[in-house]
């Protein structure tokens, strides 16, 4: 007998994942701005201070560099910190610590030290939070050797990726999309763990691979639905892990469909989608029936006004148009 699926929000899935982590390992703790008394800027840690106390749910001053560096130090010396950075825009204040220490010390020390640290941060646009709270910088972090970069796009991944990240001996960054927090999804009670190595086909299809992650995943699934109505069977591949990229899965899908649309909420220039496109050109050139297309954010600071923000971010119609053009050339 299989248990009925649990319906919950992405936010609740994140919260349960943190709660499980705190229950499972006394070395784990959460530190970040407003994670305690306030309950988290996006309410992810609500109620956890009451349950675990101020040593495990640690409110910090507004000092992204300091708290990230402290998380790295705590990981070096045996704890399992979960650092929360309110939005990835703020993480730039901590970039020095993330790159120069967390990503670097294991190699630079000749393997003497590992940094088993998890940093969660909110990413992306779509809630009219304007240019300093809406950017998608996960592609930048995916540039850095020594880091693992995760982008849960489903409630299941939001629920289970954290445990895998904490079990990993390397610094792992988890990018939670702000639009997804309120999204609901079904959780199969039989699934108690996920890997953080593989991309996943979320919708199989024959004629074009839409390769994406994060909040562009539901948009891509909606686009695939619209394309199906037009008679175009599109596959949707959820990257899930942005570093290291699951190239075998990407290549397998594209070699089968012979066409690729990359959907990435980062800016086009120098983006993660640019990297994937370059690798497809390197490794799948002769398997392609059409050029690789990209749907990215417009190269502007994400604006406040709803219609401008909508125009700045990848939308379902853009994905549909890009895929349609590849499959049915004019």
């Amino acid at each position, binding site marked *: 007998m299989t248990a009925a699926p649990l319906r919950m929000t992405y936010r609740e899935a994140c919260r349960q994942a943190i709660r499980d982590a705190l229950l499972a390992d006394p070395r784990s703790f959460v530190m970040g701005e407003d994670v305690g008394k306030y309950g988290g800027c996006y309410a992810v840690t609500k109620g956890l201070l009451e349950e675990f106390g101020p040593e495990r749910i640690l409110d910090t001053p507004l000092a992204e560099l*300091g708290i990230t560096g402290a998380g*790295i130090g705590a990981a070096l010396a045996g*704890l399992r910190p979960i650092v929360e950075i309110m939005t990835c825009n703020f993480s730039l204040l901590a970039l020095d610590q993330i790159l120069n*220490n967390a990503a670097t010390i294991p190699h630079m020390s000749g393997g003497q030290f590992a940094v088993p640290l998890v940093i969660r941060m909110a990413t992306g646009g779509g809630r009219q939070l304007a240019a300093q709270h809406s950017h998608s910088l996960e592609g930048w972090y995916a540039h850095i050797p020594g880091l693992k970069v995760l982008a849960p796009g489903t409630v299941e991944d939001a629920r289970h990726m954290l445990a895998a990240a904490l079990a990993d001996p390397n610094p792992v960054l988890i990018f939670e999309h702000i639009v997804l927090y309120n999204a609901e999804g079904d959780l199969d009670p039989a699934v108690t763990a996920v890997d953080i190595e593989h991309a996943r086909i979320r919708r199989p299809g024959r004629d074009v691979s839409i390769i994406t992650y994060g909040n562009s995943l539901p948009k891509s699934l909606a686009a695939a639905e619209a394309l199906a109505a037009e008679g175009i069977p599109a596959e949707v591949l959820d990257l899930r892990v942005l570093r290291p990229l699951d190239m075998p899965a990407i290549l397998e899908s594209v070699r089968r469909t012979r066409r690729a649309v990359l959907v990435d909420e980062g800016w086009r220039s120098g983006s993660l989608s640019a990297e994937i496109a370059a690798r497809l050109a390197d490794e799948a050139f002769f398997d392609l029936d059409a050029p690789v297309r990209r749907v990215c954010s417009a190269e502007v600071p994400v604006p406040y006004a709803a219609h401008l923000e909508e125009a700045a971010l990848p939308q379902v119609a853009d994905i549909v148009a890009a895929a349609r053009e590849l499959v049915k050339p004019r």
Partner: protein
Amino acid sequence: MTAKIPLERGHLQEIYRQMLRIRRFEAKCVELYQAQKIRGFLHLYDGEEAVAVGVMQALEPRDAVLATYREHGQALARGVPMGPLLAEMLGKAEGVCRGRGGSMHIFDRERRFFGGNAIVGGGLPLAVGIAMADKRLRPGAVTACFFGEGAVAEGAFHESMNLAAIWQLPVLFVCENNLYAMGVPLEDAESQTDIYRKADAYRIPTMQVNGMEPVKMEFAARTAVEHIRAHGGPYFLECRTYRFRAHSMFDTQAYRTRDEIEGWKQRDPIERLRAWMQDNHQLTADEAARIDADIAAEIAAAVAFAEAGTLEPVADLERFVIMESVVQESPR
């Protein structure tokens, strides 16, 4: 609180030996640099030896140390063996970091030596975190964090002071104030040139110390460490010192005068301690000669070890970028 220092002959000779060992080691480093066996940046500690040697007297194996990029002295005083240290600087697989770190990035897990950090101020937040972990996992352990006065202009300094203070973490902040951030004089860079007052503003107990005098440094460090172990919270030492040599090997020293350098050399911690000990019958000529010979032998052995070292296979270039497991960090 008054810390007790065993001021007997043997201990004084040991302090003298440790400082001289650092000085002579770095003189050999200059030779090896000029012979192009050490490459990259090389930052020498000459003149500042009393700070590292003094502080290390107060530390125990369970304590942690974070160092700067001018850290050969800090590493040697902490007990990092000279052979693997020099092999690292020669880029050999037998180096402490298998040739990946070089002069500026000496790490030694066995001695809880969490690295030379070449981002000015970059080690301070790490010290806060290590102290957070130790407070829970190794109660009583102290994290000593070395940094120069240049670091106090960085945000990392202020964030770390504040975190250590509000969370009452066992961090010994050791500011090596050598008066120049590379070539920028202290008074051009700081509105408040009494650095200890900055820590005072964070309500961290502080002491300004003459960093040219090893016994005063040891006394200050023991006082600070006893305070930290007794009360849990941080302590801040501003150590007034001077580097006799250039910032690195690429520095014409246009920013300071020969007279100024010569003036400070009159306060050389090694020469002055030797003179005092000889005048006060704490060091005979024979003992001094034996110390000289022991150090020379140790350096010769380190050079031989490093020169005989092998090169890390290029096939292992990417090894340790991604770790397969968490290395258990444990006290010696």
